[in-house]
């Protein structure tokens, strides 16, 4: 193995699930819909590196972790460990991988088998990989995770440990095989704040002591700086921004990261932070299709050249188009609410009321009105076409990740044109 082979390379990794089908789907031969939990994620973990993956619940970060530890099959792309791709692993490779890649989960209350003593839990990995000197190792690792004196803890069961102590045992179990890589899934988020810092600090120190690397998964950007130098921000299965932690905290480039950072509360009554302008929540990662996945919520979604439109009004158009094209408009409900369900004009107005707050003028307003009439008439395709003709955005193409600055990657269309260092040929796909 060459020296410059990275420890772990995640290369365009995809993990999709099929939504379960029922007998009717089978009879009608319907295509199962696809849950795109992880979709084209790439990053590299070097030795002694600590990389964080940050995102809201449902962004796919936990699926990513389960895929990395081999509990999910890979749908596409690959994970390359010390030069060997996971897809080529034989039994021996798997055994080596499983002894060198360890995981720590979020929930301390279920991370340990309630029926096993601390000693048994810590010895289990050693037994599986047939490592000797078990007593000594277990003793040492208990010392390392600051459960002292170890004798006092060896025979306890999880029910007799506090949350923090349980998480320390879980960390100990991950370290007892002296692995290369630790995957940690929000290991402190369920602990009380007085314990959080000490567990976090201990984890960081131990990673260094044990010469391991770490992928740290969390929803909480504010503690990440204590554990990882690099952050990947994930949104709906994709990484949208990747840079050193402090840079992102200081000056996030992707509109989503910006929202994420700006929403973090500042523990200071003198500081006057503006509340987020973002509305809505990430949609379900089902059949996402092409395009930037943040475009329906993005305050900076890019209008086509040559039309003059208010940014917020344009975002509303995009959100409406998104719902329309995905056939997600709650038309039945809106019609039921009407005093006279047959009144087409009132119907169109009610739909407008649901999706548009501001006033639009000129050609924009005419197009939207016409589209709303189409929708009211039931001709959704016509409405979609009409709106696409006028409002199609560059954001409907999948953005490539570009190096906006050195070591600072952003997957956002804003950075193709405004930055000289982007790829000249930004092979944007069109559908």
């Amino acid at each position: 193995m060459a020296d410059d082979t990275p420890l772990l390379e995640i290369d365009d990794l995809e993990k999709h699930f099929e939504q379960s089908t029922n007998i009717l789907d089978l009879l009608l031969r319907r295509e199962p819909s696809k849950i795109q939990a992880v979709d084209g994620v790439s990053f590299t973990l070097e030795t002694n590196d600590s990389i964080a993956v940050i995102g809201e619940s449902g962004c796919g970060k936990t699926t990513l972790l389960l895929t990395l530890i081999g509990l999910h099959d890979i749908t596409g792309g690959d994970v390359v460990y010390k030069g060997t791709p996971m897809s080529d692993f034989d039994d021996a490779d798997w055994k080596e991988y499983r002894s060198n890649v360890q995981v720590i989960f979020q929930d301390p209350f279920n991370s340990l088998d309630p029926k096993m003593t601390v000693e048994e839990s810590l010895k289990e990995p050693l037994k599986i990989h047939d490592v000797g000197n078990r007593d000594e190792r277990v003793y040492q690792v208990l010392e390392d995770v600051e459960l002292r004196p170890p004798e006092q803890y060896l025979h306890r069961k999880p029910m007799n440990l506090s949350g923090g102590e349980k998480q320390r045992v879980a960390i100990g179990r991950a370290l007892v095989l002296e692995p290369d890589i630790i995957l940690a899934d929000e290991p402190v988020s369920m602990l009380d704040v007085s314990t959080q810092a000490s567990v976090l600090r201990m984890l960081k120190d131990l990673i260094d002591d044990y010469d391991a690397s770490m992928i740290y998964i969390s929803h909480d950007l504010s503690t990440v700086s204590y554990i990882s130098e690099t952050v990947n921000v994930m949104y709906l299965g994709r990484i949208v921004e990747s840079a050193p932690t402090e840079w992102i905290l200081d000056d996030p480039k992707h509109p989503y990261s910006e929202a994420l950072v700006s929403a973090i509360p500042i523990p200071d009554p003198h500081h006057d932070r503006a509340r987020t302008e973002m509305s809505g929540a990430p949609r379900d990662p089902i059949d996402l299709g092409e395009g930037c996945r943040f475009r329906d919520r993005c305050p900076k979604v890019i209008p086509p050249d040559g039309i003059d439109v208010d940014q917020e009004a344009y975002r509303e158009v995009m959100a409406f188009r998104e719902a329309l094209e995905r056939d997600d408009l709650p038309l039945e409900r809106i019609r039921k609410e009407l005093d006279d369900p047959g009144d087409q004009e009132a119907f169109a107005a009610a739909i407008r009321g649901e999706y548009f707050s501001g006033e639009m003028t000129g050609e924009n307003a005419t197009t939207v009105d016409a589209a709303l009439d189409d929708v009211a008439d039931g001709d959704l395709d016509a409405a979609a076409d009409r709106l696409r003709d006028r409002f199609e955005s560059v954001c409907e193409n999948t953005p490539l990740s570009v190096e906006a600055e050195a070591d600072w990657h952003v997957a956002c269309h804003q950075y193709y044109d405004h930055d000289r260092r982007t790829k000249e040929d930004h092979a944007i796909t069109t559908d």
Partner: protein
Amino acid sequence: MPARDAVSLPNTEAFENIADHHIVRNFVGGLRMMLNDRTTAAYFWILVGITFLGVVGPMLAPYGIEQTQYSETGQILSAAPPSINHPLGTTFAGYDVLSRLLVGARPTVITGLLGGGLILTIGTSIGITAGYVGGRTETILMRFTDFVYGVPLIPFGIVMITFLGVGFLSSILVIGLILWRGGARVIRAQTLQIKQYPFVKVAKATGASRRRIIIKHILPNVAPMAIFFLALGVGYAIMLQASLTFLGVASPFTPSWGVMIRNAFNSGYMSQAWWWSLTPGLLIGITVLSTFMFGRGYEDLITADSESVEADTVAA
């Protein structure tokens, strides 16, 4: 709940190895914890007593079970009420009820243990396999379980007994072959739940084999539920066997408690000689109740989230 130290058992190495095994240790630990609870302990001792009766009962019987009793005047004591010589009275044919009761304890206990054991083994195996393996195996096993659920127990039992041949053991076998269904469902549900716990995922990620995970993690964690099922199975088996006996499709030659009630009923003397069927009936009821309450107590104490599973179990 207070911490309890590991159980201390005789210091022979083999024994220690067994005692050190999760399942054994958790079982013994659970039992100890449970005997602290007075009510559950009472049911436990009733069960121990009945089992003991099954062992020594036939030896204690003052008379032979088919020994006709005579009064001092030499008349057959037909359906005589309780007296000093015959504390539980006699049957129509002049047999001593107490003796028959004592002898009948053994088949009852055997039925309970064998039937319960069968139910436990089949139910746990199917439940764990379905829950852990998942996919198509699970679908097939659980559809099959649903199917067995729809089987009307006693009529089907009769059909199977005619197939297997009337007999004491075949009636137990039939019971075991049907009544595992509730256990399979509940244990599968538990397995599914345990499988989702991080500690199982961690073990998998560390490279633990499927066998290891089942033995070291799944089994000890479903053990309380399995014990509950063993207890429940014992009760159901006894009850069902008595019912089959009563209908005349289990062996009438094994003098179980069920046979006694059947004979009393068939004699037409059941209202006059009420002592004839009352004691065996009461004993069956008390045994079944004790197994159930004992199982409940065990399960209650061992698992925190026990409440939700009980519902499924009673419908077995």
